[in-house]
């Protein structure tokens, strides 16, 4: 391993220490990150780079740190953001042909906060077009490959972000999660992925897929890193009407490993044998054992409407998407069809040429479920199911502090194996979508390998209570070292 590799091998917290001790500098870290990105083109995790600007920003950060005045725990740290989070002067393609040439004139709220904290955005991560997918294969840039096995998917839709962290390109990446798009790729890539409570993080500057479900969150190696990242990006933003006013409580100081007496619910509906990889189930049960040893009490709970979640999710998400994506019409920006015969032709061809089959499928589905005569049967009913799912969780959380489930029913599947079967692709989200429908915080934590591929378990918290799931995840990581596994050293033993 060269120096670039060792520099980025650890967690964000490791790099912070190195920076503060003066062992390394932001410029070295950013340079190392850019080198790593350049050295792994076959991953296809990064779709655009900011080499010059990133290095210049690193120099400024270096001066601050040399003076002993870092702006935040992530000052001078190289990060990547998903290609649907806009940054002024940068492209924001959402991996879509229709936005191929688009450059944003403004920063997303999250980008403003990252910049104010001194983080150096080195590039933009690959994704499924408009975050519609579970494998990062539905991208104009081609698929992102798993750093663990390049014949396999990295999950999606924030696959480029997850792969970047797993491959040690950066210690911290940001994705968006509409139905599991942070947690599922985190699970597939063996990293931590946190979807905050809906409204916790500003959606200003996040290109909307499904507005009532979308939420930005971090992907990183360790749970304390996720807490650090959330502290940077969370907070009320008056530009987002769905942003919540409640301040984030201090998170890091509560990560002391003590989870004695916490009650965690195990929903029976999420532990059915059918359709779940036995290796996944085995690793998750082992993780439960580890937490039990730490003093966590597990209780069976029931989420009776679980079987309707995927259906409700795909109705609501596609309905919102059909409307959110109407603005990509070739009129003001983005791809416009050549020499349109008339207005109808301009719309038809700009959108036909600009969107992939999966995006078209979801726009059509969403248009259908909102149509006169079908609204009540589909959209109306899905909203009622959403209310029932929310009540399921309220009921369950009256008896526990958090809920634990597998993150995904399987490990990373082979590239191309589901691209012709949208339904089976949609089922990848079976354990994750409920958190989006109910607006809850959720996190995937790596818990070992099955047949050489990473497995993650999911922690779901009460609304606004990221603190408890972070405590649980941190307690688990203090007792294990699955999060230290990497594609380059996949064989170290767990501590516990």
């Amino acid at each position: 391993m060269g120096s670039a590799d060792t520099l980025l091998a650890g967690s964000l917290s490791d790099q912070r220490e190195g920076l503060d001790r003066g062992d390394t500098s932001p410029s070295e870290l950013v340079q190392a990150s850019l080198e790593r990105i350049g050295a792994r083109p076959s991953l296809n995790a990064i779709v655009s780079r900011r080499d010059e600007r990133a290095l210049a920003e690193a120099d400024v950060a270096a001066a601050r740190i040399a003076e002993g005045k870092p702006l935040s725990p992530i000052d001078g740290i190289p990060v990547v953001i998903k290609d649907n989070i806009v940054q002024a002067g940068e492209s924001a393609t959402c991996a879509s042909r229709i936005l191929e040439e688009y450059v944003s004139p403004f920063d997303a709220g999250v980008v403003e906060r990252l910049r104010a904290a001194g983080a150096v955005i080195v590039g933009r991560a690959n994704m499924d077009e408009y975050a519609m997918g579970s494998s990062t294969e539905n991208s104009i840039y081609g698929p992102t490959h798993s750093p663990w096995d390049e014949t396999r998917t990295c999950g999606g839709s924030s696959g480029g972000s997850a792969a970047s962290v797993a491959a040690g390109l950066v210690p911290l990446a940001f994705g968006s999660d509409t139905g599991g798009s942070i947690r599922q790729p985190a699970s597939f890539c063996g990293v931590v992925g946190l979807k905050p409570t809906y409204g916790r993080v500003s959606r200003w500057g996040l290109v909307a897929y499904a507005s009532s479900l979308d939420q930005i969150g971090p992907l990183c190696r360790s749970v304390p890193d996720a807490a650090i990242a959330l502290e940077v990006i969370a907070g009320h933003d008056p530009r987002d009407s769905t942003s919540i006013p409640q301040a984030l409580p201090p998170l890091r100081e509560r990560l002391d490993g003590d989870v004695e007496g916490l009650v965690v619910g195990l929903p029976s509906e999420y532990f059915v044998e059918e359709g779940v990889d036995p290796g996944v189930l085995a690793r998750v049960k082992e993780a439960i054992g580890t937490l039990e040893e730490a003093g966590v009490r597990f209780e069976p709970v029931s989420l009776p409407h679980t079987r309707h979640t995927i259906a409700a999710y795909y109705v609501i998400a596609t309905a919102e998407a059909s409307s959110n994506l109407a603005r990509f019409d070739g009129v003001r920006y983005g791809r416009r069809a050549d020499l349109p015969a008339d207005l109808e032709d301009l719309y038809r061809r700009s959108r036909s040429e600009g969107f992939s089959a999966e995006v078209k499928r979801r726009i059509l589905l969403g248009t259908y479920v909102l149509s006169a005569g079908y609204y009540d049967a589909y959209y109306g009913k899905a909203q009622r199911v959403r209310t029932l799912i929310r009540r399921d969780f309220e009921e369950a959380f009256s008896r526990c502090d958090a809920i634990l489930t597998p993150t995904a029913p399987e490990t990373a599947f082979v590239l191309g194996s589901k691209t012709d079967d949208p339904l089976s692709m949609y089922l990848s989200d079976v354990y994750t979508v409920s958190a989006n429908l109910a607006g809850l915080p959720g996190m995937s934590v790596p818990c070992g390998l099955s047949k050489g591929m990473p497995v993650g378990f999911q922690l779901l918290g009460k609304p606004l209570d990221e603190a408890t799931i972070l405590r649980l995840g941190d307690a688990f990581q203090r007792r294990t070292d699955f999060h230290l596994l990497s594609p380059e050293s996949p064989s170290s033993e767990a501590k516990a």
Partner: protein
Amino acid sequence: MTDWRDEYELVIGLEVHTHLKTATKLFSPAPVTYGALPNHSVSPIDLALPGVLPVLNERVVDLAIRLGLAIHATVNPHSVFARKNYFYPDLPKGYQISQFEEPVVSGGWIDIEVEGGEARRIGVTRAHLEEDAGKSIHDVAVAGSDDSCIDLNRAGVPLLEIVSEPDLRSAQEATAYLRALRSILRYIGVSDADMEKGQFRCDANVSIRKHGASEFGTRTEIKNLNSFTHVEDAIEAEALRQAELIADGGEVVQATMGYDPARRRTSVQRLKENSDDYRYFPDPDLIPLRIEPARIESVRAQLPELPEEKRARFQNEYALSAYDAGVLTATRSLADFFEEAAKACGVPKAVANWMTRDLLRELKEREAELEDVAITPAILASLIGLVEEGRLTARNAAQLFPDLVADGGNPEALMNERGLEAVSDAGAIDVFVEEVIAAHPDVVEQVRDGDDKPLNFLMGQVMKASQGKAEPGQVRKALASRIRG
């Protein structure tokens, strides 16, 4: 065909879109402007750039509450913004944010008066908030080429859509309703409602039914009527079209109509069955609008006196006729002018006369608004004072008036400058009287025989000789005593 009115009754409901008087747009911080360079009053939100989100301009909520209170409606504690989805180049998001199932205001009424008719109460079904679209410019002369151009300055400007019940029964009632609504909107400062600026637009739902029928006929909707004359003419034209259609054995089908003012005809633009499916659903980017009772009360406390209240008060307090009170409360500026002048001179009836007759005529001739001319309530009051004191004859006051309207100034100084002070000195008047009697001995004879009519002729002659300065009462007295003793 005989007059269709003999057989049918007209049923009209109106939908009015009125621009709210705000500094910024409904969901973006871009300023609301009229006449700015195209696309110079837009923010990334108005352009629907990727990643933008709407934030409600709270000011519009207070304006909606004001309207709700002014039309005796319910201000709903919970209302919802919904997306109305359709594609058009001047609609940047591909949807308009509006309110659908749960509007901010519902169930009110407006009283109207039609000339020669009785007062009628017209129901208002609802009023909801929505954003305006931009403008598409297809005119080659304006666009500079065959291409269509888009101006998004108007995109996102806040609108209230105010929907009436189908309570209107004639084209005249329709315009009376529009005038009353416009007057309310201006009074309470909710909208300037200037039709020429597109701030006040109207769609009319029109149907006819046999006199005495209880069921409504099939209605059509005439879109985009942008003057009161067009509203009236279009409704008449559409009613006639429907009556002729039925007379020819056809039937009215639901449709969107256009009105051609040049031909004074309506024509079908689109049949209802071909209309868009707007796929309304609650906008997930916005939270429901909640209005606390305290907020409604604080708006109520600041609500100015409404036209109908003012009209009643003017009749009681100033003993004005219903007609004068109606004219003087048509706009808030007229009413304020009246009250100020009446208080300054203490002769409300005289102020009312000057205003309803002379002032309105002057304004009409100049095609000006009260705000555009120089006369002030104080000027009118002092002019009336001069007349009341007998220092200026009504005739000469009327002569000074146009100049005072145009240039303002001090009426007394102007009177002196022009040498128009009334002659009330008995000696001076007697000189004119003697002159006139000497010149018209035969007329004097008739008066002496008891005929009063020729007296007016002699008075006219005296006034003429005095160049209008003689005080008419004294002239009459002097003539009568000189001739009849």
